[in-house]
């Protein structure tokens, strides 16, 4: 569960690293839109917008459904909630601290092993 969550978050943050994709999410947060609507809003080709939507969809941030010949996009089930973002930031803070702590602990280990021999 936790590892799955981490992988999903990595995908989410990668998806969010692009300004257009962040704009698409903001837009979809207000209302659903078709891919061609989005392409027009962001002055892009249909193909270009399809790629961006694909990245967002794989990260679970966007969900699409086809109605007739039109593909409609909305926010997906995996959208980052405020709580998820906060937890991820907190986790990263502690991961950084714990990596540094690991270095200190390894040093203590080696020092202890060295004692008595040197």
């Amino acid at each position, binding site marked *: 569960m936790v590892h799955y969550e981490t992988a999903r978050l990595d995908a989410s943050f990668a998806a969010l690293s692009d300004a257009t994709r962040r704009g698409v999410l903001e837009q979809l947060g207000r209302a659903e839109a078709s891919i061609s609507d989005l392409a027009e809003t962001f002055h892009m080709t249909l193909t270009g917008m399809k790629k961006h939507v694909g990245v967002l969809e794989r990260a679970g941030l966007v969900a699409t459904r086809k109605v007739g010949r039109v593909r409609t996009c909305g926010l997906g089930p995996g959208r980052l909630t405020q709580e998820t973002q906060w937890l991820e*930031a907190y986790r990263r803070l502690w991961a950084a601290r*714990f990596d540094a702590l690991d270095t200190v602990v390894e040093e203590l280990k080696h020092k202890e092993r060295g004692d008595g021999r040197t």
Partner: protein
Amino acid sequence: MDAPEEAGRGAGEHHTTAERTSEREVMVTRTFEAPARLVFEAWTRPELLKRWWAPQSIGMTFLSCEADVRTGGTYRFVFGHPAFEQPAAFFGRYLEVTPPARLVWTNDEGGEGGAVTTVTFEERGGVTRVVMRDVYASKEALDEAIASESTADMTESFEQLDELLVTLNVGAGG
């Protein structure tokens, strides 16, 4: 989290996990390939604590680190950051210090309603699992901490992630 006691045995398996475990609790875990007494030592000797509590990637530096690590003792960490106008101080009191198994302290910099942090060090076969729990006074207190330290604006979330790491209660848990 399928097999916590196995975590940390293989190289690269030292995942730090964080989850909200209840309405008013957040839990962080990690394993270390060392006996509990060494991890505990690194956590309770100020000159060692200073070396890891504010890692470079966070962008903060210790201005001072005082910690009287015994039951009833107090701590005060002061950090500087290029983006801070004023140094940030984090302080509280150790409610329990039980070497090498358990540490409990308060986080008083935010006034009333600050979390109480409990860290346990569980050793099994030379591997130590560290479990840290921040328990807030109420569900509302934790929700408020999340709301005040988060950005609700989706479009800014990525840019602000790094900032969030800094402004996030860096002293939480200490």
